[in-house]
């Protein structure tokens, strides 16, 4: 068995705010194998982006990160600045959620791709320009050579997102952290990008953590899924088993809120209530206030993430009471 590419243990992120410390990521553990695509799903505000950023120690003080993120035999949360710079962008690339604000408005797209090529591939001048155009072409931007001299504001939203993907892929990383890389794109382009990621995964044996709201995208691209709720992973499983037999009440809710999923075709069933306030968490399971399976035991203490079946982890006390679903993957992806 090969060693994992990334090993995350007891990751915690605390964000001080004027109204108290916001514990945005609370003891997250997971492994990622080389070439594996892991989907990270969860409601808005569940801590997906914060988790992703902390994997390459991007948060700045006063935001605090604890735990270990082991990559290449080193804990990135304790690594030297120089080592970190080497890993960031070179071996682990990140696609930000908001392409509009992540691209510097006063530098051309070509310059912003070039930065990466210079830093990690040693490419300069003409060679860098050619490679940059190639990358833009790869993400499906028409007449890429000419667009290199454009500024981000001259790009459309979808093109900006693709430019960012091009920047992230410039160094041919071992691991890609993709924070909703396809949200601003229409379906055909989305398809094209996802296929590109899968191809690079094959060619470079690149691992991918794919944050998304779209369970269809998960079904289409991911090998494994991690479900996040209230700053915790509440379930991880292979994509097939998760879709057929969720082992956490929250996952079940998520799948049921999916159009066209479930035992029978039924109307959308959004989960009632809203996500918890991470500054004032109840003592028990964070999902308890919204859960239809809730018992007193759930409210007594927070259930840990345990292996409930081979390769399946769940933090739900009632995991074996949950009904199986029989959506076909085609149905989910539709």
């Amino acid at each position, binding site marked *: 068995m090969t060693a994992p590419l990334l090993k995350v243990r007891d990751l915690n992120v605390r*964000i001080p*705010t*004027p*109204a108290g410390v*916001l514990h945005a990521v609370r003891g997250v553990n997971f492994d990622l194998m080389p070439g594996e695509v892991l989907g990270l799903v969860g*409601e*808005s*505000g569940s801590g997906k*982006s*914060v988790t992703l*950023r902390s994997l390459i120690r991007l948060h700045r003080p006063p935001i605090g990160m604890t735990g270990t993120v082991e990559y290449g035999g080193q804990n990135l949360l304790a690594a030297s600045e120089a080592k970190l710079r080497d890993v960031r962008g070179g071996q682990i690339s990140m696609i930000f*959620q*908001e392409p509009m*604000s992540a691209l510097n408005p006063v530098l051309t797209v070509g310059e912003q791709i070039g930065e990466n090529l210079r830093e990690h591939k040693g490419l300069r001048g003409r060679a860098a320009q050619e490679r940059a155009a190639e990358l833009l072409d790869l993400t499906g931007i028409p007449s890429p050579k000419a667009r290199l001299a454009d500024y981000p504001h001259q790009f459309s939203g979808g093109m900006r997102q693709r430019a960012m993907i091009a920047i992230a892929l410039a160094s041919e990383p071992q691991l890609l952290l993709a924070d*909703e890389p396809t*949200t601003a794109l229409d379906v055909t382009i989305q398809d094209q990008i996802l296929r590109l990621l899968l191809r690079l995964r094959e060619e470079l044996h690149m691992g991918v953590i794919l944050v998304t*709201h*779209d*369970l*269809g995208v998960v079904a289409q691209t991911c090998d494994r899924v991690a479900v996040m709720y209230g700053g915790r992973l509440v379930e991880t499983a292979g994509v097939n088993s998760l879709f057929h037999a969720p082992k956490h009440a929250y996952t079940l809710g998520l799948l049921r*809120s*999916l*159009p066209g999923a479930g035992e029978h075709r039924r109307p959308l069933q959004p989960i009632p209530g809203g996500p918890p306030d991470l500054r004032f968490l109840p003592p028990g399971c964070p999902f308890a206030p919204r859960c239809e399976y809730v018992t007193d035991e759930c409210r007594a203490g927070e259930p840990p993430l345990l292996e409930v079946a081979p390769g399946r982890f769940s933090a739900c006390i009632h995991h074996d009471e949950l009904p199986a679903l029989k959506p076909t993957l085609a149905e989910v992806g539709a």
Partner: protein
Amino acid sequence: MTTMHSPVLEVPARPRRRLPKPTLLIGLALLLLLIFAALFPRVLAPFSPTDFDYEALLKGPSAKHPFGTDNFGRDVLSRVIYGTRTDMQIAIFTTLFPFIFGTLLGALTGYLGRWSDAVVGRVADLVVVFPFLVLVIAIVAVLGPGLTNMYIAVSAVGWVSYWRLTRGEVMSQKKAEYAQAGRVLGYSPSRILLRHLLPNAVTPAIVYLMTDMSLGILLGASLGYLGLGAQPPTPEWGVMVADGKNFMATAWWISTFPGLALTLAGVTFSLIGDGLADALRPRA
């Protein structure tokens, strides 16, 4: 599945407690002191601001004259206290008319838009091309020195900031729900404008009013210093600084204390302005 975006990371969620900041409290306390001195100088001042005392010319600070005496033997502390009224008056009258005129005009052109807005915009662009002090000095030069003419001059140019602030606010609020609702209910435009839009849109102008008051005091004192503002024997801090300028080497206190009073007044208004801006900032 719908996508909902949480606020971008760099914007910290900050639901803050709405206690007044100490800056606002300090500013208000200082303002009370200034108002008291302006209304009841007699209570605070140990001497008359105008009586000469040839026994005590150019005396340094002492227990009897904490701020010393000037070249006529007048008590500097008493003169500074009596000057408060003039400089507070300057703060009010250099800002009041620009505030009223600028806000109303801003509400009007912001609401009407089109050509009225374009015309006033052109005039405003023209006014800002003239350095504020230069234009005020030039107008005062034509009308003649003195406080009244200074107020006229400042009013002619000072409205622009208020116009800009209010116009922008009204424009964005015009689209807001309650204005639309008012139109549906068939309220007259003037009612929508005066009763609904203006009270909401005036906040930035009020915050700026405080900053502007400290600028107004500085301007009034500058003109006083140059001999174009308050005319002697009116006790005014800028004039007092000018009175003492030839004695800087031998009797520094004559100029120094009125200047400190000016600074204190300026700080007072800017503290209140900051505090107000903070307190009135829309809740996150």
